[in-house]
């Protein structure tokens, strides 16, 4: 399982995988909220920097007990959004009808061992989470629509 770390949060690790052509989107959609990880529509993410800046932001809010959503995982999705509207953030950056590629992301404790089958429920082709792969999947027009009229960090 690919495992990333956010240096400053040394007791935490980030399990994250990119899946192409996921076949059971509907199943996953019905389970959103009960799964121990966040599911993000990969067409909304252009690069690793964008993804991890959101994770970092969510971790900061989490550290000071300032989460605006119920859990750290949902906070990661909210943090991707330029607005603070939670519903809108999920509609844009969560999985939806027509989503094909997804990013699964879980923030776990450093010593958690049962991470290997974390994303087993996903039926799709796992590919490397690289800027190249993300770049080939993301939808520039969509991003423009979401972010352009809005000023970053509002």
């Amino acid at each position, binding site marked *: 399982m690919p495992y*990333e*770390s*956010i*240096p*400053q*949060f*040394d007791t935490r690790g980030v399990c994250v995988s990119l899946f192409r052509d996921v076949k059971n989107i509907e199943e996953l959609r019905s389970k959103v909220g009960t799964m121990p990880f966040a599911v993000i529509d990969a067409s909304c993410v252009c690069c*690793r*920097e964008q993804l*991890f*800046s959101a*994770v*970092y*932001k969510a971790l*900061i809010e989490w*550290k*000071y007990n*300032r989460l605006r959503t119920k859990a750290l995982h949902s906070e990661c999705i909210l943090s991707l959004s330029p607005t603070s509207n939670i519903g809108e953030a999920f509609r844009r950056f969560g999985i939806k009808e027509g989503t094909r590629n997804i990013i699964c992301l879980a923030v776990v404790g450093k010593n958690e061992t049962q991470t290997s089958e974390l994303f087993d429920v996903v039926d799709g082709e796992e590919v490397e989470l690289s*800027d190249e792969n993300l770049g080939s999947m993301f939808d520039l027009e969509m991003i423009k629509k979401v972010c352009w009229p809005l*000023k*970053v*960090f*509002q």
Partner: protein
Amino acid sequence: MSKEVIEQVVTYLTPNVPIVPISQGAEAFVFTTNVHPYNASACKTAGDIPVKYIIKYRPPKKYRHPSIDKTLTKHRTLSESRILAKLSQVPGLHVPKLIACDVYNGCIWIEFIGEDLPESHGFSNLKNFLWMYKTDPYNIAVEKVLFKVGEQIGLLHWNDYCHGDLTTSNLVLHQENGDWSPYLIDFGLGSASTLVEDKGVDLYVLERAIISTHSKFADKYNEWILMGFKSVYENEGKKGQQKLKDVIKRFEEVRLRGRKRSMLG
């Protein structure tokens, strides 16, 4: 306190983020690190030089009331982050890129700008740059840089932002193709503002900063800066001309007020 503050930062960042303190300003401590806060793949070296990041930390100030301190730290960290994010979208304006921020702990990560000046003249801010040329104060290189400084401030003001603390240490020079290009840093007191008053005060503060540290050559220096400043507005047609007139008029008023304000004992 330096030691105490460094300990605070080390605890906050954990040993995973090694830091080097580089300066202690009145408000913030500045460190460099080679570790990106969240994007491990960005830490690779560019050529032989390791990529550097700035961490700016506003420690709690014990002298002021905790509630003032909290509000100020949060407000300034947030406003600095927002301004940096917005200004980086202005074409032609040079500000370092914002990477991350933690408003609750007064911490910002920013792209590193600047380098060491030749012959141990120190870090490449405008202050040291002008000192470096003190034996050749009217060199064309100085004129070029100061003109560009004026242009940067002009761009900033034209886009209705104000810096709030324009000193010669808050202008950092970055070499691009052998030319020095000034970057505006430290927007800790910056604001979005359409007020001519704020712009006038900005210009006055910089003028005074130049006078107080480089007094002998200040007249010429301020003239070059103003030339650069005006050039930005003059490129904006009639509207630019009018706005320029208003800003300069207010600048002169602020300056006059500053001089007249000897007042009572």
